[in-house]
């Protein structure tokens, strides 16, 4: 069954084989969970939001007409579920406070993270968790999940230009942090 494309599975679910939806859950659970875990900062909330996202995807499947990839559509639902959970728990949503024109400051906690990091990789991923949500999600979706900037802008519901700016600012900020803590590139 793993050789089936997303669209073939969706068609099967739409024909009434609801159990086939488990194939889509299996295919995307780790990617979606990873994104939620980074947004919500704890596994229990991430699992709850993941369940909510898959439930919404299942019941909204008839509204999915294949205009975008299923993964992009699912990421969008997942992202919105995370935002709803954050809002309902009245947590501080940095992304909503930080406009695209404002610079975020990473310098306040990087020393603390540096002292507990074993390697540059460890340091970078801990720092990503400290970025404003949208910046972190752009990095995760672009580098780990391999989404294009167009797909990411669709997930975040923002323009392509804004998505690019988010990626560029995050990239430059993390690069500067690597240099500040002497994680120097290897010499040729």
């Amino acid at each position, binding site marked *: 069954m793993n050789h089936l494309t997303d669209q073939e599975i969706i068609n099967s679910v739409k024909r009434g084989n609801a159990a086939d939806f488990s194939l889509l859950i299996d295919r995307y659970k780790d990617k979606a969970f990873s994104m939620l875990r980074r947004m919500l900062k704890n596994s229990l909330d991430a*699992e709850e939001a993941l369940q909510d996202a898959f*439930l919404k995807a299942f019941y909204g499947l008839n509204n999915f007409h294949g205009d975008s990839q299923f993964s992009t559509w699912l990421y969008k639902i997942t992202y919105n579920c995370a935002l709803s959970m954050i809002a309902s728990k009245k947590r501080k949503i940095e992304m909503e406070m930080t406009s695209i024109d404002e610079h975020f400051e990473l310098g306040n906690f990087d020393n603390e993270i540096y002292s507990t990091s074993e390697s540059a990789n460890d340091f*970078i991923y801990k720092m990503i968790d400290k970025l404003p949500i949208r910046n972190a999600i752009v*990095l995760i979706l672009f*580098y*780990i999940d391999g989404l294009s900037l167009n797909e990411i802008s669709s997930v975040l519901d923002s323009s392509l230009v804004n998505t690019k700016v988010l990626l560029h600012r995050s*990239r430059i900020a993390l*690069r500067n942090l690597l240099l500040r803590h002497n994680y120097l*590139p290897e010499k040729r």
Partner: protein
Amino acid sequence: MNKFDELTNKYFDNDISQNELTELNEFLKDPNNELLFKATQNLESILRQGKNINAPEMIEEKFMNKILHHKTRTEVFPIFIASIFILSIVSVFVFVFSFTDFNTRQIEFSIKIEQFIRSMNISPISFSLFVKNKIVTIIGLSSSFFLLLSFLLSVVSHKAFKEKINKYSGI
């Protein structure tokens, strides 16, 4: 963002033109810029090695149980609401026609209403004329029908209400 950072970003987005690449190479002759560029390369390599955080085990089974269970129970809701409204609509029809089809019963009903109105100290003549008018009856009947129908449609499509009802019914 300065020009060098802008070109660096374009380079790593694979979005750089030949002229911009030449310009970037000029910048890279400066050792400071070269260091920044290599640090970005290093960052790119770290980020691309990143892995997803795995979801907890057996999550598909748990979610599928929830999905299938959820499906059968929520489908009852629209049927329940639709039944109530259809019953109300039918009742209105039955009630109205039972008085308009039989003149004697209609008159009896009107007399009862007149007596009631009189007891309330309201002029019975104008009210009696109003009630006996067939056009008013048809308008009233149509309004009740459309009002109930629009209530039905708005309630069934109201997601928050649906969720609330499901919540209180233990779903």
